[in-house]
């Protein structure tokens, strides 16, 4: 096929403004920044633990500050949204799953993931409250 003699290529600037699905996608990806930030925060706690008791107590003290509470609430919201969106797209990423010869519907996979998430969270909370 001979290419057209003169074509016009439209720029991609502000492409996210063109469709709401693009903005939802960016929001989904953007929450991973918060996930990474929280991982760094936990890593800082580990470093403090290695440095000694004074450093670790300082880090624990910071956990009770208003800044830390706001950060944790924001992180929880970001984590919940991030997990929710990925559970939504999970059926697209799993190999075909069949039950008694029939394909398992996407909504069943989504609900199973939500249940597993809920049970794991509650179990972790119970364990933490029991041993800490």
């Amino acid at each position, binding site marked *: 096929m001979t290419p*057209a003699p003169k074509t016009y290529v439209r720029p991609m600037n502000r*492409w*996210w403004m063109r469709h709401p699905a693009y903005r939802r*996608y960016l929001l989904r990806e953007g929450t991973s920044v918060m996930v990474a930030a929280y991982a760094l925060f936990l890593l800082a706690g580990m470093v403090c633990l290695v440095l000694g008791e004074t450093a670790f107590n300082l880090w624990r003290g910071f956990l009770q500050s208003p800044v830390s509470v706001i950060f944790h609430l924001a992180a929880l919201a970001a984590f919940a949204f991030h997990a929710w969106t990925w559970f939504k797209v999970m059926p697209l990423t799993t190999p075909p799953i069949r039950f008694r010869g029939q394909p398992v519907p996407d909504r069943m996979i989504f609900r199973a993931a939500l249940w597993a998430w809920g049970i794991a969270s509650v179990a972790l909370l119970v364990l933490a409250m029991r041993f800490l």
Partner: protein
Amino acid sequence: MSQTRTIMIECLRYDPEQDQAPHYRTYEVPFTDEMSVLEGLQYIKDHLDGSLTFRWSCRMAICGSCGCMVNHQPILSCQSFLRDYYPARIRVEPLEHFPIVKDLVIDQSDFLGKLESVTPYLVPAQPLTPEDGPNLQTPRQIEDYLGYAQCINCLLCYAACPQYGLNHEFTGPAALALLARYNADSRDAGQKTRMAVVNAEEGVWGCTLVGLCSEVCPKHVDPARAINRNKINSTQDYFLRFLMPFGRGS
């Protein structure tokens, strides 16, 4: 016969022999309830401006020729109705992410090259002759690929994919869905030859699961699913090549 109303259709116009950049022109189009956007464009061409250029053929969502952007949404213009947009005006543009040849006509050559790269045909394990008889499949085996086989190459998925718009090296939704279609076919033995395309940075890993490709597909091919399931195959292939460097893999 339903009542005639008038809708404003704003069309992107680009004449490569005269224009440096595209511009928009608005037309007043009388329409009835049963008229599609394509019929609106045909009215413009027949009665208002014969120079308006666009592709179309079957008028029933089979040929995949009449894809365009209507209010920034990739659609088949034969499958969308003017009544659903009225009384607002509509903006009709060529499919996003492709070079414009003239008005609503885009240059598809990049896609055609990519389509060729995925070996979009059955590769039998051994050469077959008519004497070998029919290559039978069970309904279950057909079900494995039938959804992906519905693609009509209309390119709406490419117009919906910002990753393709940002990086034209990305193989893209339709070609990768067709790759999955042939890999999933029990009569095919060409998976190994297609793995290089799957594994490449511009193969399945170029997809970040925006997901709009599957939403806009008029044939419900679900390219996002096809691509992301192949990420598992690509990962398996990667590790198997480490474990069995002289045996399997591409």
